């Protein structure tokens, strides 16, 4: 599978800090690619370098294997995190204007817009003023305008922020549909559940570095080793003290009624048996199973330096 975007050794410095430090990312054509990372990690800066809004201090961006040019921008649909609309315009006029700027003919834009407005059930907004829309409503319009010209590459920066669960779900479905129609989708997020559902590739950026990159399945399998969930009854605090040093505690839930639970990571296989016996000494052990970690676990471990 060829890469639609290759970011090679991107470094971007601002006066106070380095936003990206030698970050390389390869985005395969036809994938849904997640850019993950905590706030301020450098996700947005990386996206802005790809969309040529920002110029990297070092490194280069390849689009389809050759250095990206201004012309390529029209093959990209970009929904920034900082998004707005001209407030005084009518919704339909504004959508038409933006669609035409992306290279669509007026008539074609009109047909496609009607189609999208119907799909989202928002035909009656056409003659409303933008300033009358709620934030979520405006965001739907922005999404439509971003994808309307059917670009090969779609980039969404935090697309789910500001959406209620129902609309977030609608958005997810649309993203997958666009992928099925042949588009490559990059989106940044810190909403982990969405990553598992729709991404096939991810890159995790933390503190300006690319910490983790690859196919979601591979990553989960690679990090699936040696995560165990434990169900027990007894003093959780004593248990935690007991097993400290031999394994890493990912989560611990103390239950007043029923069983308490614990999620741990054991680094070396030879420590598994001793860990079990330590737990057994401290509490009444009811269950001990290996689990495949969620992206959330991997994310937290990566950010905390556990990888």
């Amino acid at each position, binding site marked *: 599978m060829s890469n639609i975007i290759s970011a090679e050794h991107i470094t971007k410095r601002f006066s106070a800090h380095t936003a990206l430090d030698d970050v390389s990312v390869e985005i395969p054509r036809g994938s849904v690619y997640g850019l993950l990372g905590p706030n301020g990690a450098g996700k947005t800066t990386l996206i802005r370098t790809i969309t040529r*809004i920002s110029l990297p201090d070092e490194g280069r961006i390849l689009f389809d294997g050759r250095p990206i040019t201004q012309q390529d921008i029209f093959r990209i649909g*970009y929904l920034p995190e*900082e998004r*707005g*609309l*001209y407030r005084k*315009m009518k919704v339909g006029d504004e959508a038409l204007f*933006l669609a035409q700027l992306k290279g669509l003919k007026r008539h074609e834009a009109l047909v496609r817009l009607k189609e999208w407005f119907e799909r989202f059930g928002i035909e009656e907004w056409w003659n409303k003023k933008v300033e009358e829309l709620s934030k979520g409503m405006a965001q739907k319009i922005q999404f439509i305008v971003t994808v309307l010209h059917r670009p090969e590459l779609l980039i969404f920066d935090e697309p789910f922020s500001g959406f209620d669960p129902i609309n977030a779900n609608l958005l997810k479905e649309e993203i997958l549909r666009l992928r099925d129609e042949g588009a490559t989708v990059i989106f940044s997020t810190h909403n982990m559940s969405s990553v598992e559902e729709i991404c096939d590739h991810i890159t995790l950026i933390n503190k300006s570095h690319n910490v983790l990159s690859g196919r979601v399945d591979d990553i989960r399998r690679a990090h699936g080793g040696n995560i165990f969930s434990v169900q027990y009854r007894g003093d959780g605090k004593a248990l935690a003290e007991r097993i400290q040093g031999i394994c890493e505690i990912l989560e611990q839930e103390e239950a007043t009624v029923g069983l308490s639970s614990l999620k741990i990571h054991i680094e070396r296989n030879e420590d598994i048996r001793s860990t079990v016996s330590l737990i057994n000494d401290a509490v009444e052990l009811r269950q001990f199973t290996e689990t495949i970690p969620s992206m959330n676990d991997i994310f937290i471990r990566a950010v905390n330096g556990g990888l």
Partner: protein
Amino acid sequence: MRNIGLIVGREFRERVYKKSFIITTILMPLLMILLSAAPSLIMAFAESDNKQITVIDESGIVAPRLTSGEELSFEISDKELSEAIIEASQNEDNFGVLYIGKDIVANPNDVRLYTSSSSSLMLEESIAGQIEEVIESERLKEYNIENIDEILKKVEATVHLTTFRTDKEEQSAASSAIASSLTGLVLGFLLYFILVIYGSMVMQSVIEEKSSRILEVMVSTVKPFEMLMGKILGIALVAAVQIAVWGVLLVIFSALIMPALMPDNILDSVQQVQAGADVAAIATQQELSPELLTAMASVLDTGHIATIITLVLLFTVGGFLLYASLYAAVGASVDEAQDAQQFTTIITLPIIVAFVVIMMIMKDPNSAVVYWCSMIPFTSPIVMVARMPSGIPAWEIALSLALLYATFVLCVWGAAKIYKVGIFMHGSKPSFKDLWRWLRY
């Protein structure tokens, strides 16, 4: 190019279809006419303030020849001075007492005015002037020359120069320093006025993307150059439409209102001058200054008018576009309109310089300073227009225009770079090396 067209269209529609735009477009000319008519209206309705003056003339020569006018009326009296003063102060309508000495012809300083309220300089000069005339004619009489009045009338002369160019290109083009500087000044003020209204509109419009947060969507869709160019041209179009409507409305309203307020024979006189009549004669006939008449005549000369209007339009539009691009650059470099205040003041400084240079044109339309200022784009729209009536070689005008429009495009390009760099630099001061990279990106 297509994007520029789209942006022009949006800027234009967003402004022109607004209610506030339509209202100001219609109300403005009405307001202007009312304002310009206000002084004459007030004059018309104000009570005429006639001042009665009691005249005691010991010589008996002056008093009968004082003529009462709209403001002054003289009443001759034989009373004693002190008695007259007391009487005058008791009578509200009476302004004062004018005493003229017995030997006034030999001793012209023997004149006194007693008033109960303060008099004005105009009033004093008008009285003194009348007395002077009487004394002068009395003194002339003493020489016993025959037909003195007729001789005097024949001797009297007013000289006014009408100049004609004699070089190859424009043999007959009348050149008048006053006409050219008048045109320059009018156009200068017009340009300044247009800039004050629409320049800040351009700036606001550039800031709009930042405040409505659509900025990032736009920069990732169109080139900043296209965006700024579109905005400038769009607002220029708005300005053109609004000014054209104002012009038409002004003409209509003034046709309805003005005849009552303006001496309508000025235009006739101007036409007579153009037909070759004697300026001085018509000027005195209409009580107009001969300079003004020649100026108006050469400005309104129809043979000239087509080329001049075309050139003036080209320069005014070019001047507006150039300054608008500066406003756009200011808009590009600030986040909020408040931060732009100091920059906008600096922008209009070259216009002031141009006004000063226009004064120099009166002295010499071909001096070095004037020449260069008519070439430098920031002053050329005003200075070149003022120079034009004195007959400028075509290539100079062409060069000046080319420079003007080239600078405009260059300024938009520069503003676009500032815009793009300014957006996401986040406080890191760019070095010259960085700037160079940005300019090429």
